[in-house]
């Protein structure tokens, strides 16, 4: 794998990996819910649990948030810290 700044779906992040939210590929209502839980473009995320299947836990703005895999796939992040 190439290290550095890549755009990936959040569901592809490994445990312990840091990333920066870039964009969502989601409908308006879901987008609103993501934002109110702290996911905005530029927000730092840290993957806390991801077994490659099933839901995952990510830390955003100091909150642990559980997301379905499908939902996490709709959040585009840039690997590494800005």
């Amino acid at each position, binding site marked *: 794998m190439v290290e550095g700044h890549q755009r990936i779906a959040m569901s592809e992040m490994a445990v312990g990996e840091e990333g920066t939210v870039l964009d969502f590929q989601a409908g308006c209502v879901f987008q609103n*819910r993501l*934002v109110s839980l702290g996911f*905005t473009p530029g927000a730092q995320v840290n993957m*806390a649990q991801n077994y490659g299947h099933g839901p995952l836990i990510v830390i955003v703005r100091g909150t642990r*948030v*559980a997301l379905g895999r499908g*939902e996490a796939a709709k959040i585009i992040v840039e690997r590494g810290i800005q």
Partner: protein
Amino acid sequence: MSDCHSAPVKTTAQLVLRDVSLPLIALAGQPNMGKSTLFNLLTGLNQHVGNWPGKTVERREGIFNVDGDEWRLVDLPGTYSLTANSPEEVIAREFILREQPAVVVAVVSAANLERSLYLVAELAALDAPVVVALNMMDVAEQEGVCVEPHVLEAALGLPVVPMVASRSEGVRELLCVVQEVLSGKRLIRPHSAEVSADHYEILQKIEELIAGYVPLPYPENWVALKLLEGDVEVARMMREALSPSAWEVVQVVLRAHDDAFMAVASGRYEWIGRMIRAAVTRPRIGQIGLTERVDRWAAHPFWGLVLLAGILGLVFWLTFTLGTPLQGWLDGQIITPLAGFAADALAGAPFWLRGMLVDGMIGGVGSVLTFLPILVIFFAAFALLEDVGYMARAAYVMDNLMHLMGLHGKSFLPLFLGFGCNVPAIMGTRVIDSWPARLLTILIAPLVPCTARMAVVAFIAPVFFGVNAIWVSWGLVLFSLLVLVSSGALLNRVIFKGQRSAFIMEMPLYHIPNARTIGLLVWQRALSFVKKAGTTILAMSLLVWILSFLPTGDMNTSFLARFGQLIEPVGKLMGFDWRLTVALITSFPAKENAIATLGVFFGNSAGSGLADTLASTFSSASALSFLVVTMLFIPCMATVAVTKQETNSWRWTLLSVFMLLGFSVTGGIVVFHLARFLGL
């Protein structure tokens, strides 16, 4: 002011509802911030729990007393934001705008300040008089976070009171500050969040376009902000308020800036970021908190399920080892003697009156009430797990399994509650955010075997299956759950076309449970159960008794018996005679009534007669079929009533009833013939 801090604050609450002359205090906050703990602390038992008008969202209100002054306290629904994504969010903001509370206490968590200040930013934009209750200072400390309240207060421009609501710390200080705001001693000048500079002009432009057309009581700048955020409710309101051409102009501006929503949200988080940088010392990187350590096990895809199974097993074990003897004691020492006493006291009364009071009322309602200890233990265990923060983990590890039915993890929580009683389970579906997922959960919830059905199983199974009764019982539970999963999967395909809602849920930090919060939750659930026993169950018990009494005074020739005989051909397919069929019908008011009815038919020889008579009258195949049908039968009438209340639709309620009727009859027929084939 000094005496305000020294004098103890008395919070003796009285319940005088909707006394509009009292100062109105609203409690706002995101979920998991300890808002309910604070509300319970202030109002105690004297709170009124109802629904917001026209909505199935819980409304809690109380009146409490501070140094002789009475205040009215309304608990707003817990929401993450105030944008119209859910009924809760609309209720919260409409209440603040229309009722104009004198003070809005915003409960935020010191351990989760960055996210919880988001709602404060929204409240400040509403021009509400906000006092910030900086709760969970203890959890913050435990997670290594340090917050300086005075710095935060200066940065926000809002009063900030540090507190630990679960230990009642800081409550007096909070009430003092609220009092200062009420008396005008303390003015609130919030440093509101602003949209990022590149969108400032757009906001101005929209404000100009709508100026003079915004209906009261909505502030113009707030409406402009919400339009930028793409709020559907506000957009609908302004489309009606503006002329079509003016609305078109607004639309054009909005469409050209469809990224504005992010700009507004980012603006708020930038504002929050400034507050945080001023007031918070973050934990050092790499420091692992308690929550993270526990979650390595509790949220693990395998060990998490093992832990959940262990916890469930423990809850059931506790419920039945502590609760069942208590239930037996209540039945043997209170209800039976009471019935005997009433029968003696009414010896001179007409036969029908004695029968109605002794058999109909004490027999029906009394036997339901004996389940109270079992339910209290179950509710207490559930409330404890909820308050510690474990329930979110249970939902998380169950997410994969729930996908089979097109549901996600959150639906597991009400279903779990259903093992105690299906009524709170159906009310508990309110935690599910999407309506199709909630409806589906309501429809399958009655398939969770409740304690009342388990009581029927616990009575019948040993009579017919002896030492194997335990395996029969477990088999029946597993069978019910199997039917639940398959019918859920089927309903999702057929009715809901396989659509699935988004799973996104906060995993709260673990914290030490609060006895008061748990106690009040158990109290409220137990109270609603007792109320149900005193009303719907009482009415139905009396009705069933009357039908079993008229016209001859003998159950064997009553209307109920005639009805049982009428539908006996269906019963025969399941291996029932008309008496078993009638017993099943009488389980509609309350499931355990089935035993009472069998008692009337077969228990005349007194003492342990019922068990022996049953064993000699019916085959094991009939008994097994009867148990299967009992597990799957039409939900009890309280469950049907609450289904109607929560779905607000007779169509879905009847679907639920007929679906379960179909399942139970089919299940009974199949199991009976299979059991016969196997030689039972």
